[in-house]
């Protein structure tokens, strides 16, 4: 399920439109992840708190979103471009890949909330595919 040239352009265009609110979307998405899927809090046991809307969750959501934006710039070679991030996730963080899908869903919900007109079904499918490809690239070094 790789991205067509048109879908890559759609992703770049939408992320560009989204850039003024990218911090909000990142922070909200991670807040919703830990709220809707409480099992994901298991990765944040080392924080003082991992409640939705809390400072560490918001800050980390922004960090993650920064990584996603970086990946947009590497959309033509995600596996190559994200090698070191993949090593980080494989050997240090060891996040179960099922959680990438859950976070992607929360990101899509936030995008839809904040950009209801722009987040058309065509944009939705392109972004969903991109996030899935991103997750695959992050899993590259897992085994």
């Amino acid at each position, binding site marked *: 399920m790789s991205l067509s040239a048109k879908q890559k352009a759609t992703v770049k265009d939408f992320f560009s439109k989204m850039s003024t609110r990218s911090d909000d979307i990142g922070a909200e998405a991670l*807040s919703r992840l830990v*709220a809707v899927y409480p099992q994901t809090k298991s990765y944040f046991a080392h924080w003082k708190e991992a409640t939705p809307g809390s400072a560490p969750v918001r800050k980390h959501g922004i960090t993650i979103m920064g990584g996603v934006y970086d990946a947009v710039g590497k959309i033509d070679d995600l596996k190559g471009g994200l090698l070191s991030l993949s090593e980080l996730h494989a050997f240090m963080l060891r996040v179960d890949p099922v959680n990438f899908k859950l976070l992607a869903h929360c990101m899509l919900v936030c995008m839809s909330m904040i950009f209801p007109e722009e*987040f058309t*079904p065509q944009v939705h499918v392109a972004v969903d595919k991109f996030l899935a490809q991103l997750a695959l690239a992050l899993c590259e070094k897992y085994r």
Partner: protein
Amino acid sequence: MVEWTDSERAIINSIFSNLDYEEIGRKSLCRCLIVYPWTQRYFGGFGNLYNAETILCNPLIAAHGTKILHGLDRALKNMDDIKNTYAELSLLHSDKLHVDPDNFRLLADCLTVVIAAKMGAAFTVDTQVAWQKFLSVVVSALGRQYH
């Protein structure tokens, strides 16, 4: 049995009482067919599904989206026994329609995205938690009678 807090019940009831079934039903089913095109396998008799534009204009799909959404009314009226409420519908989807139950989850995700777009900031974290809990109970009930 699933436990619902008063707050969760209020949130779910509020969403449904403000719901435009035609708009949200149509948009959700169309989005599902576009975002997850393999779901089109169940709609062979529904006319032109050639691309996103034709799907979005297809009146048979629109009508079916509304029908599906009204199917959720049963869960709303029987929140304390959703499992048994959908026993018959589950058998129908298994034995007659032969729908892979994973599709219920895909449609539920699209419904969530569409409702989020409609509600905007009103789709708070607590609202999403309650809404997705409701949908996951429905999805589970619909898959339960498969054999």
